């Protein structure tokens, strides 16, 4: 078996978060009863005309600036002609030869911590189609045109990804970015963020690309990964058994975990693209671009760099904490409530207990049951040694389920750390008295038994003994040994 290199490029469709559609005044809200959000323009009535939504252009430009792309001073909408019931005009208005966003790039972090730059070929504006409905209709198909005319930004990457994992990392990064920019809600279940993957393989070292297959409409990160993995294995197996990959469009079936041919290149439509004579070219001047630039938030990479620099976090931690604007904001709110020296503590807790609880209960950070102020209350008690880190986890769980403050829980459960040397000493004395054999063994050189005594004291105090004090007092009481 020869050594194969995988080549992947993604076309991501991000639904833009405009209030109204790209060429009509209908609202874009998801989930309304069928055909209640489609006006005469969306229904392609005779005589109606499209009018471009300026907000969609602003959002596209915002994206372009965020990926350091060239923003076209002049871009052109074209018609992509084909017949389908969910496409009322018989053509989709898209951008073809002259897209609004030209070449740009984006950095992704790989598993080994290395940073890779993925090229972005272009991003263009287009309208979404409606939906065909087949369920519950005997011998008929329904059409819901609520989605028809919803603005999409299609972001086309260079064929720069070399594994399914890289493709997912890139898609996640774009997902992070569009949500940072507040141009897309990123909701993948509702189809607001989805992608097509172009996949090919070639013998390692070969410059020429292999023949690619395009996998359509992948709407989760997991499906992207699995579909690409399946497709790569299929192509390699096909070539190694003497076959040839044909250029075609394939669909991923997540139930069977396989891709299936949808149509070959020969069956592909001739879309007869030509400039839409109903729309003028989009002219964008420098002041428009600068006005959009002024609305750019701190971008994920900028935030990560700042976290690493200001809070002394590792690149990995900084990357995790800046993966969403909301997570970053949460983290910063926590840090702000503590002294700077405790940023690392805050990072560990946000990435550890908090993220764990959020994932476990499928809650997003904006709806976290422990808010930043509550977490600050807890971390302060760790910092001032009222409780140990271990006890803190117990307190956190109680906060999560009961919603009370850390102090209330510590008081109510009597979890305050014992720092009274006399009290700790009396427990130590009792433990030593009760375990003469272990004491003798320890003193005869079994150092490991130190841990046994620590454990016994902690057990007797319910984990509340101050660990540092306990260590010190225990060492002096046990005496002997090798200490």
């Amino acid at each position, binding site marked *: 078996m020869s050594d194969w290199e995988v080549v992947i490029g993604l076309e991501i469709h991000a639904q833009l978060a405009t209030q109204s559609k790209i060429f009509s005044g209908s609202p874009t809200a998801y989930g309304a009863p069928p055909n209640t959000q489609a006006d005469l323009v969306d229904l392609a*009535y*005779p*005589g109606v*005309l499209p*009018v471009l939504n300026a907000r969609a252009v602003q959002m596209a430009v915002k994206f372009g600036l965020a990926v350091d792309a060239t923003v076209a001073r002049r871009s052109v909408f074209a018609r992509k002609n084909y*017949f389908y*019931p969910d496409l009322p005009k018989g053509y989709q208005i898209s951008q073809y030869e002259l897209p609004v966003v030209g070449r740009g790039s984006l950095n992704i972090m790989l598993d080994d911590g290395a940073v890779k730059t993925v090229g972005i070929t272009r991003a263009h504006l287009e309208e979404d189609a409606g939906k065909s409905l087949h369920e519950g209709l005997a011998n008929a198909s329904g059409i819901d045109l609520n989605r028809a005319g919803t603005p999409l930004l299609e972001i086309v990457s260079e064929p720069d990804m070399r594994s399914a994992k890289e493709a997912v990392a890139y898609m996640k990064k774009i997902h992070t970015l569009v949500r940072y920019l507040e141009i897309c809600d990123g909701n993948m279940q509702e189809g607001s963020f989805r992608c097509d993957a172009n996949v090919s393989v070639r013998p390692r070292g070969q410059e020429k690309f292999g023949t690619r297959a395009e996998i359509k409409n992948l709407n989760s990160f997991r499906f992207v990964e699995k579909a690409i993995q399946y497709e790569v294995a299929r192509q390699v197996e096909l070539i190694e058994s003497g076959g040839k990959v044909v250029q075609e469009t394939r669909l991923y079936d997540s139930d069977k975990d396989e891709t299936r041919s949808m149509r070959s290149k020969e069956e592909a439509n001739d879309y*007869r693209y*030509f400039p839409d*004579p109903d729309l003028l070219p989009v002219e964008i001047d420098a002041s428009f671009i600068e006005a959009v630039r002024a609305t750019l938030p701190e971008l994920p990479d900028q935030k990560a760099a700042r976290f690493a620099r200001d809070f002394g976090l590792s690149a990995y931690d900084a990357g995790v904490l800046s993966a969403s604007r909301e997570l970053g904001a949460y983290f910063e709110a926590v840090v702000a409530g503590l002294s700077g020296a405790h940023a690392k503590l805050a990072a560990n807790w946000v990435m550890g207990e908090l993220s764990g609880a959020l994932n476990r209960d499928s809650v997003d950070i904006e709806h976290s049951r422990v808010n930043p102020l509550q977490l600050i209350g807890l971390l302060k008690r760790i910092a001032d040694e009222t409780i140990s880190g271990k006890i803190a986890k117990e307190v956190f769980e109680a906060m999560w389920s009961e919603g009370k403050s850390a102090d209330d829980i510590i008081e109510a459960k009597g979890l305050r750390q014992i720092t009274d040397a006399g009290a700790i000493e009396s427990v130590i004395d009792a433990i030593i008295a009760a375990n003469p054999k272990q004491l003798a063994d320890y003193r005869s050189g079994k150092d490991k038994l130190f841990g046994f005594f620590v454990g016994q004291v902690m057990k007797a105090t319910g984990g509340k003994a101050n660990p540092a004090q306990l260590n010190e007092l225990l060492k002096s009481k046990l005496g002997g040994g090798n200490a």
Partner: protein
Amino acid sequence: MHNLFIGELADRLAKRQISSAELTQHFLGRIERLNPALNAMITLTAKQALADAAAADARLSAGERGPLLGIPLIHKDIFCTDGVRTSCGSRMLDNFVAPYDATVVARLKAAGTVMLGKSNMDEFAMGSSNETSYYGPVKNPWDTAKVPGGSSGGSAAATAARLTPFATGTDTGGSIRQPAALTGVTGLKPTYGRVSRYGMIAFASSLDQAGVFARSAGDAAAVLQVMAGFDPRDSTSVDVPVPDYSKALGQPLKGMKIGLLREFFEGLEPRNAALLEDALNIYTGLGAETLQVSLPHLPLSVPTYYVVAPAECSSNLSRFDGVRYGYRCENPKDLMDLYKRSRGEGFGAEVKRRIMTGTYVLSAGYFDAYYLKAQKARRLITDDFRAAFDKVDLVIGPTTPTPAFDIGAKMNDPVLMYLNDIYTIGANLAGLPGVSVPCGFVEGLPMGLQLIGPHFAEAKLLNAAHQYQQATDWHTHAPRGYA
């Protein structure tokens, strides 16, 4: 009463010498009596007209005055009219009742006009003789064996036969000016973008322009005043101020430079040439200066047009698919069958011919050779006009090569039919305003002279036409039996 001009009618309405109801009754009566021989109308809206006339009379009684308040009109059946069938001359839309008013209709309605009905036209405005209509050919009131020209043949014939004081039309390659010439009325095609296309069923979006048929340039000016203006619902409408067209009609022509288009005069039929010679003498008598100008690329205009217009129409007419409105075939077997038979049965031969031509010129492999080349030719023709207008104020030439021809004479020879528009197409390709005014008779049939001006020079154009009509009486001739 039906021989009065709009200004005279408005004057009598203002003085309450006649009522809008009387006027409306009068024209409805003429339509009832005279239209059966002409077939100029597709739909009559008598009941609504009388109600609208009563409303106009109420406004007049309340002291309101307006140049079109209470004046009847006929709309070409290409304009969407709320609650009224809008067929576009096609079986495809025979059952289509528009749910909204075109901007042109709404503006004229707001001005207090009274719609008598909707006029016959070539199917989807594709034709030069009004013989492609699903509702049968319109006959020329000057000789009912002859065509009235097209595609706005119904509006032209109705205006010539005094069935209405004026009518709307649309001009994609001459569809106002050519029938105006062949029926002896004044026909104005404004600058592309001067009048909104919203609600006007699209044939070729980059060429279509709404305009007016009237019996004088003065009447056309009053109507254009209401129709013209920016419309936010049409991205190609232009936001430039609308001058007072009626006020501009008094300008003397002394010093005006009128260009004789060499390409138009070469090979002109002698009787046609003689009429133009007479017209030029009138103009020089009015103080205008005539000089030769050349548009070297003008001979490319017919082939250019028959690439651009079909290309756009092939896409514009895709929405007529039998799914949401309009004609649907009986018992479709499946989706493909629904598309194929609905379109196959709903469209006539000329429409199909142009859809096929347009689909061909946009297809992969032919796009560059046809569509792109045509766009380049269009640019050259536009540049020729621009260069000419550096030297002259307006250009002049014939509107048509011949007077009205026999019904049926050219139906089997599309190329011969297309050559009818040889003098009118240039203005559409360049987006320029043009007007045709009656200039005499050949074999008892009216002929037109055409004036073309720079972009947005309608005021100058209408004034030049008006000055000519002040010096001549060709525009006052009525066909026998219709005076």
